[in-house]
């Protein structure tokens, strides 16, 4: 993957991304300072999804501080995540790291009898000192089963960005899933419960068999998987999970992601198609919801149409968002940044981007900010660290972290999604300061 040397003075366009239509996309591959969160951040929404799970980061004070800062306000007396902070004694080998971990886990589980699944989350320091959390998880599982199962995955910044933490967490759950030969549809990726209910209702109305979700709402309600399982990804960052499920015999449904009315329609139709339902049979059943969604988006389209959009790499949602904002809201795409490009998972999205869209993979933040300044976009989608500085330079911004916390998928949320991008622009119109 090392295509452009970090010391290169300027990024250079490399070979165009392969796509169905004729016009190539421009792909910039960049290396340099990456202004992104690490995978530990995913804990913030994963722990809410599974209220009987605890996420224990094995790492440093930095890890604890990061998760705390990303989580924002501390509304929980005792959150269902924490950090086993490595100290000098652990590093110097004065204390056996495994004994220490056993002690901390015992202490934790004694405090929290309601926990059924404990995730040991690897961090940069634990990876660098090669602390074997997989073996530790096995040992601890033996000790605490049947009450608590212990699973491990890595959320370290040297291996994962932001949403990849969820990918690794779900991939770690795949070996635990029961085997089944039954026909089933597995929705993969965390969405708000309410959104998931809406979409599952649609699938039931279409008569699709056995709809399950990963992650489940209770960590012990593990969905079955087997050769007759079709995987439908709800989130675009689940490469490792998709591969692990494929290894269990399940088949991946090629689809865009359920953002916006068109994305949601194509996503549902792809799933229905995988079970032999013709688009002509599905379409009429979705029509009412589609009309509602279009109407809701139309309210904000006026604000967004023709406005120039620059997306910095952050949550991995950038490409589907760009597709929605271009296709349904009429925004002009100046640059679509993504932490990494998984061509397989993005294929259906890339096809729908307009010709000659610039996609940048990876980041050299200072050079990218120079491009932002030169492009003078109407709206920049970026992380929290950059938002106020860009606003101070006169640019409107949308924080990308909100996109992983808010209900944005499906027909009923399409208008809300558009509103998130219209709000910074509307606000600028209102203010006279």
């Amino acid at each position, binding site marked *: 993957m090392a295509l452009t040397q970090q010391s290169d003075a300027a990024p250079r366009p490399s070979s165009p991304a392969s796509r169905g239509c004729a016009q190539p996309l421009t792909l910039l591959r960049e290396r340099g300072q990456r202004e992104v969160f690490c995978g530990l951040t995913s804990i913030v929404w994963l722990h809410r999804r599974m209220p009987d799970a605890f996420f224990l980061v094995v790492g440093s004070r930095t890890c604890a501080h990061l998760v705390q800062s990303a989580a924002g306000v501390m509304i929980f*007396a005792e959150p269902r995540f924490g950090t086993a902070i490595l100290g000098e004694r652990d590093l110097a080998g004065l204390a056996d790291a495994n004994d220490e971990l056993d002690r*901390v886990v015992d202490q934790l589980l004694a405090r929290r009898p309601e926990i059924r699944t404990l995730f040991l989350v690897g961090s940069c320091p634990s990876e660098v000192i090669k602390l074997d959390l997989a073996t530790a998880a096995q040992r601890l599982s033996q000790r605490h089963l049947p009450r608590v199962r212990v699973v491990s995955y890595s959320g*370290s910044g040297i291996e994962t960005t932001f949403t990849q933490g969820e990918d690794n967490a779900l991939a770690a759950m795949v070996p635990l899933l029961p085997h089944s030969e039954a026909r089933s549809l597995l929705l993969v990726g965390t969405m708000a419960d309410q959104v998931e209910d809406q979409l599952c209702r649609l699938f039931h109305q279409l008569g699709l068999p056995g709809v399950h979700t990963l992650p489940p709402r209770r960590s012990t309600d593990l969905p079955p998987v087997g050769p007759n399982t079709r995987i439908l990804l709800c989130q675009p960052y689940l490469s490792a999970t998709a591969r692990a499920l494929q290894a269990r015999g399940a088949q991946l449904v090629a689809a865009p992601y359920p953002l916006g009315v068109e994305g949601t329609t194509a996503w549902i139709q792809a799933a229905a198609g995988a079970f032999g339902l013709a688009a002509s049979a599905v379409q009429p059943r979705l029509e009412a919801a589609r009309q509602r969604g279009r109407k809701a988006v139309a309210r904000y389209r006026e604000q967004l149409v023709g406005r120039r959009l620059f997306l910095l790499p952050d949550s991995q949602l950038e490409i589907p968002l760009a597709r929605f904002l271009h296709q349904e809201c009429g925004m002009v795409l100046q640059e679509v940044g993504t932490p990494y490009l998984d061509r397989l998972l993005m294929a259906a999205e890339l096809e729908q981007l307009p010709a000659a869209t610039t996609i940048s993979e990876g980041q050299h933040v200072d050079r990218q900010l120079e491009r932002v300044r030169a492009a003078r976009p109407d709206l920049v989608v970026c992380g929290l660290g950059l938002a106020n500085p860009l606003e101070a330079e006169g640019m409107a911004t949308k924080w990308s972290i909100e996109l992983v916390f808010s209900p944005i998928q499906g027909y009923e949320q399409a208008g809300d999604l558009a509103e998130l991008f219209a709000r910074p622009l509307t606000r600028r119109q209102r203010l006279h300061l």
Partner: protein
Amino acid sequence: MELTLWTYEGPPHVGAMRIATSMEGVHYVLHAPQGDTYADLLFTMIERRGKRPPVTYTTFQARDLGGDTAEMVKTSVREAVERFQPQALLVGESCTAELIQDQPGALASGMGLPIPIVNLELPAYSKKENWGAAETFYQLVRSLLKDQVPPPGTARPGRAPGVRPKVNLLGPSALGFRCRDDVTEVCRLLGEIGVQVSVVAPLGASPADLRRIPEADLNICLYPEVAKPVCDWLQRQLAMPCVYTVPIGIGATRDFLQEVGAALDVDVTMALRPEVVGASDLWSPQLHGGSTERARSRMPWYSRSVDSTYLTGKRVFVFADGTHALAAARIATAELGFELVGLGTYSRESAKLVRAAARGYGLEALVTDDYLAVEQAIGEAAPELVLGTQMERHIAKRLSIPCAVISTPIHVQDVPARYGPQMGWEGANVIFDTWVHPLMMGLEEHLIGMFREDFEFVDGHQSHLHAGGAKPMDSSKAEGSQDPPEPEPGAAVSVSTAKTRRWSQEGLAELGKVPFFVRGKVRRNTEAFAQTQGIDLITVDTLYEAKAHYGR
């Protein structure tokens, strides 16, 4: 290995970032993996800074580890110096980079750059944020001033007659507590006694400013958490005297002026004159016209005025960084007439001072960075007011106890748009208002409780107590039920021992009539009393017998 849920302090390199971000012309190259860039948002979101912190991260990845991460350091250093053209460069590493031992500081020093390179060694696995800030400030000052250190035993030349005395204010920093306004207030305070402020650092200073530190006659250590090592070193190596008293509160401000006056041979009697009680000069036009007549604090009169008698003996729990905990304890007891029921700090560096102070108040200090231990101590002390950090604000909210934030760690609402110093005369005014308001709201809450049965009372009436962003669910829980506040389900900390003692219906109803802010304490006392008396079912009589037994 230590189990941590919430932390008071970040890692030491975040302390270094606070110094770099405070200053002009300083850049920090941090050897760190990509996730560590989260620290930028502390500054751009909490303090709403309009500029990115001057930090370049190498953001190495796993695939780089087999290769040349040292080369990444050099590239980052080279690019940062070219792009940002700093006057001085800090080079260091975060926890992960410490493990791979690239020694970025040494690498940068060997690059032959035309600016001073400060090699920061901040042990991430044993030290924390405030230590990191202090160490960074010290290393930076030391490397910029080392050529100005005279031979040992050299006496400092005295101030020439007729020359205005000059002082440096050391310690105010980014992400400190109200530093911006404290600097303004202390400059004003010193201006009134004819003392000029020479260098303020690190906040707003450049490396060139730091080089001017020795020109002043005296250093003022405004925030020992950040500046104590620097002030000690300047005293030792450059024979610069230092005032360590932090002017937070009326008494401390008076002490501060006296010490500055003594150190500089300046007459401060006018500044120390007691204010005229309740006098019209509090509103005199002179005060607003920038005359030499200074605005003395209204706080002493406000505290003596009859309305404040209801503050007498209010039970207060203080937990903060060392500086603000010590100051708050003194103000709470000597200047507001509260009763201190808990005093603690998360700053190990201040443990000795806080322990000594606590003994003076007849308490044992709580020195810990375990948030759950603090929550438990607050629950047990059942205070009527909590003065703490934003962590204690959350604890107090859960326990339905009024609270004011007096120290870092802070949240965005603790960086107010208005002028809100803690130091000097105006700082005392601000403190009076911020600490007393939640208590007044507490009284209002009590009235709501009293009138809850009235038909005019609208169900769901919101009190002001939790107006700061609490979810409706929380506040309805706080005032909607007759029961004393309980922690959230699943919380291991429990303020009551209800599981061992049963309450009769009437007993519980009577308990519900007790004002909410003492209800927890009454409940605990009654249950403890019942236990000693071997009473299984707590009745109305038990409640009043316990009341008679314990007094108030």
